[in-house]
């Protein structure tokens, strides 16, 4: 088994874990963490693609690394925004649950 395949399998596991957490976990903070695991899996997959030399058939491919760095910055900003809103929600309500919909929004769906 080549090293790229090992990376690829690890990436697939991380993506699976992240997706599971993002969909199943009820707490927003856990969802945000799951998103980061999912993102980590995707970046690792990109790394495996780079190692394989992508479709160009080269020994290694520098382009995915540049993209992964940008992706990490984007994921970091997303996490920061999510945590900031979460903190503000905690200050306002004393809780971080998405379940008890405040009465103002009056939405019928409560499962998120």
């Amino acid at each position, binding site marked *: 088994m080549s090293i790229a395949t090992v990376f690829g399998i690890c990436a697939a596991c991380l993506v699976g874990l992240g997706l599971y957490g993002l969909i199943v976990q009820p707490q927003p903070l856990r969802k945000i963490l799951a998103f980061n695991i999912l993102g980590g899996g995707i970046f690792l997959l990109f790394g495996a693609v780079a190692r394989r030399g992508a479709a160009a058939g080269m020994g290694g491919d520098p382009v995915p690394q540049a993209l992964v760095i940008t992706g990490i910055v984007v994921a970091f*900003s997303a996490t920061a925004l999510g945590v900031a809103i979460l903190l503000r*929600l905690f200050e306002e309500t004393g809780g971080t649950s998405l379940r008890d919909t405040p009465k*103002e929004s009056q939405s019928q769906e409560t499962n998120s």
Partner: protein
Amino acid sequence: MPSEAMASPNAGFLVLALALPVAGILLVFLAGGRYGRGITLTLVLAGVGIAAAIADGVWRTGDALTYLAGGWAPPLGIKLRADGLSAAMIVVTSIVILAAGLYAPNEFRVAQGKSETRASLSFWVLLLSVWAAMNAVFLGNDLFNLYVALELLTFAGVPLVCLSGSPATLTAALRYLLFALLGSALYLLGAVLLYGSYGTLDIGLLAAQVRPEPALWLAIALMTAGLAAKTALFPVHIWLPPAHSGAPPAASALLSALVVKGSFFLIVRLWFDVAPAMTGAIAGQILGAMGAGAIVFGGVVALRQTRLKLLIAYSTVAQIGYLFLMFPLAAEPNALAGGMFQAISHAFAKAAMFMAAGLMAGVLGHDRIADLRGIGRALPITVFAFGLAALSLVGVPPSGGFFTKCLLLSASFTAGQWWWGAVILAGGLLAGAYMFRALMPALANSEIPLTLPAPVSRGREIVVLALAVCALLVGMFPQRPIELLQIGRVHLSEVAPQ
């Protein structure tokens, strides 16, 4: 592709369309919220001119405008490309942004001698950010660049939801963010798979290389699912109604009219530009079925709403459904035009509607539909604009909505898929019913004449009316826009393998 290898003569406008809003963001940050309105309106006025110049350039040359960043051609460099679809959407975006900027000042003005509030700075920065991100989505020609543009759009849209900072809007914003993050992760995963299979992310180069194989199908499926979550396609729409109805009116208008169209635009790029011949019949039918579900479900739930803003938000859920009816009919030339017309006319009509609802709520202090009596007498222009926008959503001729439904209906019948036609007609009836429910009390007389707590600015009413009239004009003069939408598409279908 010789004509695409070099930059087009007036491609500088493409750079300006991106640079201007970003420069505006920095300027407002430096100058502070007090000058936010002045800076924003000046730049957006210039932006409308730039959008017109781009559309004019595309129209005159009859081909897409392209710009190569730093003179490097793809796959190494990044190309900006404006075809007919982008040009039309850039023009619509600049008009809606201008309207939102003109409408907003009362809520986000910093009074003389008072310190500025958080919202007064944030709103203008976010307005410019939405504009920058939308232009980046329309001009991008590289799937990773488009990913970054999509994230910018999310990061601009989520804070718009919770500008007021109340717990309800914070919950709505967080839920929106979580859906959007899942969506962007799936999109990026699909982009990685495409890069792994074909070694490029440039749309033009990808279109020349893609083959119908499992890797492509998986990538397109992941990306479409992720983008659908961001577009709030039924059944992943549940974040939209609380988010769009809780935001301040100018922000709701931006979110409903523009932000959901950004991710939709990328689905169009994927299905019509990256892999035009390879999106199988079944996948198209599934997307169409979800769209049909959105039309029926959104319409029925909108009928049951007691609050005006929630009714309008559920109407957005239903109207998004029409956008997706073009995918099962992709082989028909009318389908793409119908879907894009829906995106454009809905943008104008829904922006007008949210802003009109904001003016009514501002006068009454609430937006309960049952207690709207007398508002038609107090705010005749606003209610008239609301009615015009409603006519466009229902699809009464000669509005933009009517023309959209015409195109989609004719596509569905020529394709022999009459069931989509039935859904379109049923959706029109439902829209008629829920709009009638909202307008009937608004037009009724009340025994006690309404006393306005503060005079409503005539300028804001005229902005709302102008947007509603835009939705109408799109339907009255459809020929030019339709021809514009086709520009730059022939080239791609030649490149694509059969």
